[in-house]
C-alpha cells in the first residue's frame, strides 16, 4: 500500500482532482459502452414482442 | 491499353476546356482564402512571412479538396462510370488517367499561381523554388487521396462535407512535409530531405490509390 490513510489516497498527493477526474470520465465512458448495446438489445426485443402480439391478434 | 489511357486523357482534357469556368473556380478560391488571412491576423509583414508556409499549404489543400468534390459526379450521373466498370480495361488505369487529367489542369494551375500569392504574403523570393517543388510533389498526392474519397461519396446527395471529413485527416503527412519544407527554406535550412519524402509519398500514392479509387467506384456504382 503506498498510502498511509484513506484521506491521503483520495488526495493523491496534490493530484487528486486530476486522477479522479480521469478515472471518473473513463469509467463513465466504459459504462456507457456497455449500457448502450444492452439497452439497444432490450429495445429491439420489446419492438419484436410488440410486433408478435400484433401478428397474433390478427 | 495505353491507347485507352491517352484517349481518356484527351477526352477529359476536352471536357475540362469546354467548361473553362470550372477550371478557374479552385484558383479563385485559393486566392480568396489566402487574402482572408492578412485580413484576419493583421497586415504585419513579419507575422505574415512566418505564417506564410502554413497558410499557402492549407489554402492549396482546401482548394484541391473542393475541386475534387465533383470529380466523378457527372460521370456517375450520366452513366459513364457504368461503362468504365464494365469495360474490359482495368479500372485503376482509367481512374489514373482521369485523376491525372484533373491534376494537370487544376493542380498544376494551382502550383503556378502559388508563388504569386506567396509573394503577397511576404515569402522571400529565394524560397519560391522550394514552394514550387513541394507543391508539385504534394498536390498529386492530394488529388489521388481526394479521388478515393470522391469515389466513395459519389453516390451520396450531399457528399461534399463528408468528403472533407474522410480525406482531410489523410492529408496531414503531405501538409506537414510540404509546409515543413517551406519553413526550412525560410530559415535557410536544407530542404532536400523533405522533398525526397514528399516524392516517395507521391510514388506510393500513384501506385496504391488507383486501386482504392477503382474499388470505391465499383461500390458506388453497384449500389
Amino acid at each position, binding site marked *: *500500500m*503506498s*498510502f498511509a490513510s484513506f484521506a491521503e*489516497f483520495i488526495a*493523491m*498527493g*496534490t*493530484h*487528486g482532482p*486530476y*486522477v479522479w*477526474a*480521469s*478515472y471518473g*470520465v*473513463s469509467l463513465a*465512458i*466504459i459504462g*456507457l*459502452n*456497455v449500457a448502450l*448495446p*444492452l439497452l*439497444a*438489445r*432490450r429495445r*429491439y*426485443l*420489446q419492438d*419484436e*414482442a410488440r410486433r*408478435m402480439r400484433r401478428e397474433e391478434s390478427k | 491499353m495505353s491507347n485507352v489511357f491517352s484517349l481518356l486523357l484527351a477526352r477529359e482534357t476536352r471536357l475540362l476546356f469546354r467548361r473553362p469556368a470550372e477550371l478557374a473556380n479552385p484558383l479563385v478560391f485559393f486566392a480568396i482564402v489566402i487574402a482572408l488571412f492578412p485580413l484576419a491576423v493583421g497586415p504585419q509583414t513579419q507575422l505574415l512571412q512566418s505564417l506564410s508556409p502554413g497558410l499557402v499549404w492549407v489554402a492549396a489543400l482546401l482548394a484541391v479538396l473542393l475541386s475534387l468534390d465533383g470529380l466523378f459526379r457527372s460521370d456517375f450521373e450520366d452513366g459513364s462510370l457504368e461503362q468504365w466498370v464494365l469495360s474490359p480495361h482495368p479500372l485503376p488505369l482509367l481512374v489514373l488517367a482521369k485523376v491525372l487529367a484533373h491534376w494537370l489542369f487544376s493542380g498544376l494551375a494551382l502550383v503556378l499561381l502559388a508563388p504569386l500569392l506567396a509573394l503577397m504574403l511576404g515569402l522571400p523570393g529565394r524560397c519560391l523554388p522550394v514552394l514550387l517543388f513541394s507543391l508539385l510533389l504534394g498536390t498529386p498526392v492530394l488529388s489521388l*487521396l481526394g479521388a*478515393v474519397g470522391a469515389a*466513395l*461519396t459519389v*453516390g*451520396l446527395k450531399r*457528399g461534399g462535407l*463528408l468528403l472533407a*471529413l*474522410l*480525406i*482531410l*485527416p*489523410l492529408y*496531414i*503527412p503531405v501538409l*506537414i512535409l510540404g509546409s*515543413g519544407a517551406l519553413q526550412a527554406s525560410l530559415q535557410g535550412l536544407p530542404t532536400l530531405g523533405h522533398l525526397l519524402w514528399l516524392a516517395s*509519398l507521391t510514388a506510393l500514392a500513384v501506385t*496504391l*490509390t488507383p486501386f*482504392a479509387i477503382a*474499388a*470505391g467506384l465499383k*461500390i*458506388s456504382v*453497384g*449500389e
Partner: protein
Amino acid sequence: MNWTWFHKWGSPKWFYEMSGRWLPWLSVAAVLLMAVGLAWGLAFAPPDYQQGNSFRIIYIHVPAAFLAQSVYVMLAIAGLVGLVWKMKLADVALQQAAPIGAWMTVIALLTGAIWGKPTWGTYWVWDARLTSMLILLFLYFGVIALGQAITNRDSAAKACAVLALVGVVNIPIIKYSVDWWNTLHQPATFSVVAKPAMPFEMWMPLLLMVLGFYCFFGAVLLLRMRLEVLKREARASWVKAEVRMQVEKGL
C-alpha cells in the same frame, strides 16, 4: 491447412451460438482484470518520482490508447476479409467495432489532456502522441460518418472497408510525420509513457489493465455484433426462434 473454421465463422448462426458461450467468460475476465489492475494501480503501485501520483492516470490512458490503435487495425483486417472473402460477419464486425474504437480514442485524449494539466501546466499541448490520437479520432469519425451516410447496408460496409484500408496504410505515415513535426517544433517534452525502466509493481498493473481493456472490447463487440446479426438475419428461422425465446423469457 483446415479451413472449415473459417467458413463456420462465416455462418451467423454458428457465430451467435459460440459468442453466446464466450460472452460470460469474456465479461468476467474483463471485470476481474480491470478491478485488480485498478486497485493495484491506484492504491498499491508506488508514486512516480517525477510526476507524483498523477502518473496513475496511465493505467487507463495507455490501455485505451493501445486499444484505440489496435481497433483501427482490426477494422482494416475485417474490411479486407469482408472485401476479399465476402464474409458478412466481417462487415458486421467492422461497423460495430468503429464506435468502440472512437470512444477509446476519446478516453485516451481526455485522460491525456487531464494528465497534461499538472505535468505541463496546461490541458492541451501539441504533443506528438496526443496529436496522433486526435487524428486517429478524426479517422474514426470518417469511417462512422461514411457508414451512416450510405443507406445500402452492403455498400456501406464495403465503402467503410476501403476507407479503413486506406486509413491503415496512412496511419504509420501520419504517425511518423507527426513525430517528426513534433521534434522539429518543440524538442524534449516528456510524454505520458516515456518511461525508461518501470519497476515490476508499476508495469504489472498496467499489463493487467491492458488485458482487461482487450477483454472489455471483446465483450462489448460481441454484444453489439449479436444484436446486429439478429437484426440482419431477421428472416432466418433460427433468428425468429431465438427472438421468440428471448421475448418469452423477458415477459
